[in-house]
């Protein structure tokens, strides 16, 4: 096993150090570890190339002279091998460390840790005094979190079973664009291939395994796509006017766009995208919150209250 590792390291060094493409025969002659028949060496080299590529090392194939059909050569360009984030300060390293630490015990813990090791290898001391003492945390998500992140990076489709609002089990095939987290919940958004529409799924509503599959030719992720913007489709936003009792209805008060003092009551306006979510929140506050406008929303609230009455008489 050590021999194989030595050979991979030596191959990386040789391909990184060369200023021109090295042919296979040059590699077999000069890089330590290629032994046996021509066929064996060939097989070894093919496997090694695949292995290095799996580690994310970019091996370029080219020839000395494009005019003549030369034997193909190989090299690793240092600028594609090495991490280059430009000029990095101690404060930046400290911020990146906070970002990595946020994963402790959560899904991307290992990746965050290895990223941090690379950042520490840049040789810039982390300036911890330059950042406030905060320790934000990301919580654990679905067991198959890594399947989703890999699929996004490799443009693979994912398939899973999703629980609908009435707990029906639905099969979904999605081209994932991005993941995001809010209120301790994780979401994946992407194109639902059957509906051909952008949809967002809450990871804890995915039932069972998530599997990924290759898409020939991949797919495009829209530049700058944002899960929460797609969730709160801004064009559909409506403003509601609600009366809330003084000192009460904190959850509604927190989201108020404006507040007018009306004595015993405050009149607030809030923006909403989904009327059912707002109705639920208004009813949570019982006799401390009343919808004034729009009239449709007010009527909906009254209809729901009727249903509650009918269920409980």
């Amino acid at each position: 096993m050590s021999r194989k590792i030595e050979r991979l390291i030596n191959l990386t060094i040789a391909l990184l150090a060369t200023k021109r493409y090295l042919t296979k025969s040059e590699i077999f002659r000069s890089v330590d570890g290629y032994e046996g028949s021509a066929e064996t060496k060939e097989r070894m080299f093919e496997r090694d190339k695949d292995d290095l590529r799996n580690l994310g090392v970019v091996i370029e194939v080219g020839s000395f002279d494009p005019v003549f059909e030369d034997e193909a050569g190989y090299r690793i360009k240092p600028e594609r091998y090495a991490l280059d984030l430009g000029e990095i300060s101690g404060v930046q390293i400290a911020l990146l460390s906070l970002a990595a630490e946020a994963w402790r015990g959560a899904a991307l813990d290992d990746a965050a840790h290895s990223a941090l090791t690379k950042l520490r290898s840049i040789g810039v001391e982390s300036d911890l005094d330059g950042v406030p003492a905060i320790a934000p945390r990301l919580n654990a998500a679905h067991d198959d979190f890594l399947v989703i992140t890999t699929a996004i990076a490799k443009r693979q489709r994912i398939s899973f079973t999703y629980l609908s609002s009435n707990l029906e089990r639905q099969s979904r095939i999605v081209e994932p664009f991005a993941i995001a987290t809010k209120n301790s919940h994780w979401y994946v958004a992407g194109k639902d291939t059957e509906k051909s529409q952008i949809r967002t799924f809450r990871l804890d509503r995915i039932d069972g395994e998530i599997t990924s599959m290759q898409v020939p030719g991949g797919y495009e992720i829209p530049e700058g796509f944002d899960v929460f913007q797609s969730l709160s489709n801004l064009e559909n936003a409506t403003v509601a006017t609600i009366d809330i009792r003084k000192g009460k209805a904190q959850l509604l008060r927190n989201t108020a766009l404006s507040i007018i003092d009306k004595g015993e009551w405050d009149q607030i306006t809030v923006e909403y995208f989904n009327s059912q979510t707002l109705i639920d929140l208004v009813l949570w506050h019982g006799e401390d919150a009343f919808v004034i406008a729009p009239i449709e929303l007010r009527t909906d609230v009254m209809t729901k209250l009727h249903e509650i009455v009918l269920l409980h008489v």
Partner: protein
Amino acid sequence: MSRAPQTPLGRTARLLDLVPYLASHQGIELLSLAQEFDVSQSQMVADLTTLWMCGLPGYTPLELMDLSFESGFVTIHNAETLAHPRTLSDEESIALLLGLDLVIESLPNDREDLKKIALDLVTRLSARSSIPAKLSALPVMPGSVRSIVERAVREKSGVEIVYHSSYSDTITKRIVVPIELRVENGSEYLWGICQNARAFRSFRLDRIQTAVLTAVQKISTTPSEQKHEVAYTICTHSREREVMERFGLDRESHRGAMETTSFSHEWIRRSVLASSGSVEVLSPADIRSDVLRAAQSILNRYAST
């Protein structure tokens, strides 16, 4: 137990990352090095021994890497080719991008300077990764509150919190002697002794508005952990998924009349109202009539204004 990979490929990746780390941490102790890479010391010695055999073609002492670690301190020379850290993998970029967004959202508002620096890092990382989408992570609470609560738990210090109780819809100031942080139904709670109530209480972290450390007197008698619980039965009429999530019930066990418990009558009443007719309380009778009374009273007010 080490979680670092022992496969040839995993070890190769580790060795490639080991060289730049050593180059920037000359003379590091073997023990700290093993900890950084999450391997045992003997595994680290095995890794270093393998690395020793590597270098530029020719493989004479002039071309091989020059490592020394017998003394327990590790130095490396003649390793310029591998001395730069490797570029970040997709997974690593995703981890940092989500982490950075969380950091930006968690920084206090008066640190616009740091938010800008972090945002610039997001731009640089995205440009170098294969992820064109924005990866958002919104924290459940301000980072400053979290660090104080965590410190209180760690140092067993009292903490004064301004807390919004959603079921009683009140904001109160309380002094808590923390015991631990707990996760229930996907939310994080601070569990401890509330000095105001002289009883064990749990506080949802995202409902803590501010927190400061404070000295507390030791309580001589520990309150009992006996929780006051209300048993109740509900059934669903629609939106089963939201109902099961709201009432913290296992989605798998969804059927007919479901019996469960809550810490408060008030919470049950509010939750049933907030289910907008998707849920019916079957028992106890007093909560059922309470819900009915509340719904009728609200309706009356709508009708009269």
